[in-house]
């Protein structure tokens, strides 16, 4: 019981400190070059987070690079739907439906 509470406490404090670090020491600013570069952060990091979800199998080791991955196909569908319809609701739920369909025909990752 105690150890469990300690784990939660460590995680809560750590995450909070890491998150708020930059907002606490606001007098230290990044150089202009870095700030401009960080405009590229959203597309870069969403891609890697997405890749992490798609290519890392449940067992956690190595990468599943199979193209018949329902996650992969459905995520691509989500991107295509968004580009054509520009409606997040339709994209998310449309690709979710595709995912459900594919899940029944393709092996689960």
């Amino acid at each position, binding site marked *: 019981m105690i*150890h*469990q509470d300690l*784990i*939660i406490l*460590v*995680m*809560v404090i*750590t*995450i*909070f400190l*890491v*998150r*708020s*670090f*930059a*907002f*606490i020491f*606001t007098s230290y*600013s990044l150089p202009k*070059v870095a*700030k*401009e*570069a*960080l*405009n*590229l952060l*959203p*597309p*870069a*990091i*969403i*891609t*890697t*987070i*997405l*890749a*992490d*979800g798609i290519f*890392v199998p449940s067992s956690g080791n*190595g*990468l599943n690079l199979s193209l018949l991955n329902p*996650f992969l196909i*459905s*995520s*691509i569908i*989500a*991107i295509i739907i*968004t*580009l054509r319809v520009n*409606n*997040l*609701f339709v*994209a*998310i739920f449309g*690709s*979710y439906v595709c*995912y*459900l369909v594919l*899940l029944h025909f393709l092996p*689960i990752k």
Partner: protein
Amino acid sequence: MDPSSRIEWALAFKRSAPLLLSSLPTAIVFGALMVASKLSALDGIVMAGFIYSTVAQFLGLHFILTTTGLAVVFITTVMLSLRFLLYALTLVDEVKPLPLAYRLILAFSLTDSVFILTKRRFNEGGGQKDKITFFLACTCLFYIVYLIGATIGVLIGNAVAQHAKDWGLNFFVYATFAALLAPYLKSRRNQIVATLSLVLYLLLHNILHDLSIVISSLVAIALLEIGRHLLKITPKNKGDPP
């Protein structure tokens, strides 16, 4: 509430709505999984409310179930949260004038979705005060929905946890990310950085594991910017979706 604040709240609600709806299943699944793993409903809500990061929460559950040592918990949590530090660094100029307590609240709420929505808002026209209101609105909306989801999850418990994989509820997070990525891919610059990130991630994952998310992104950005300076190309916009 003054009219411009009301406008920002309405805008935040409108833009957040699809993302809120898709964060709900994830929050519910977490709550359900906690209860299904024989942890208490209170633990579930505390973790959701104070850790407030689905990835970290699921990992936390794993740590608890495997009684992982605190040093490993600490190091892994730092690695997982690095991207939040990056998000904050990107927005630090916008929040500088605010009081510390306000800054801490905003920092705590910087999840992926809140960051993306807020970053886009700060790059648009309009008064700074309005944009901060937007940030605060997103903060409140996402947090409330997330807590509601976690509460529903611990209440529904076992039933959901067993079916989560069958119903593909875990896909919602990634559907959201894919839908958020799409508009960025209209610009050549973003296409290049996304491709670079992906390639680097695939190359580095087996070596860097959890760190590969942040490192691949940063290296991709650095490569692109260095290339751009070497070739003396000026970006047309701030890299936002057109």
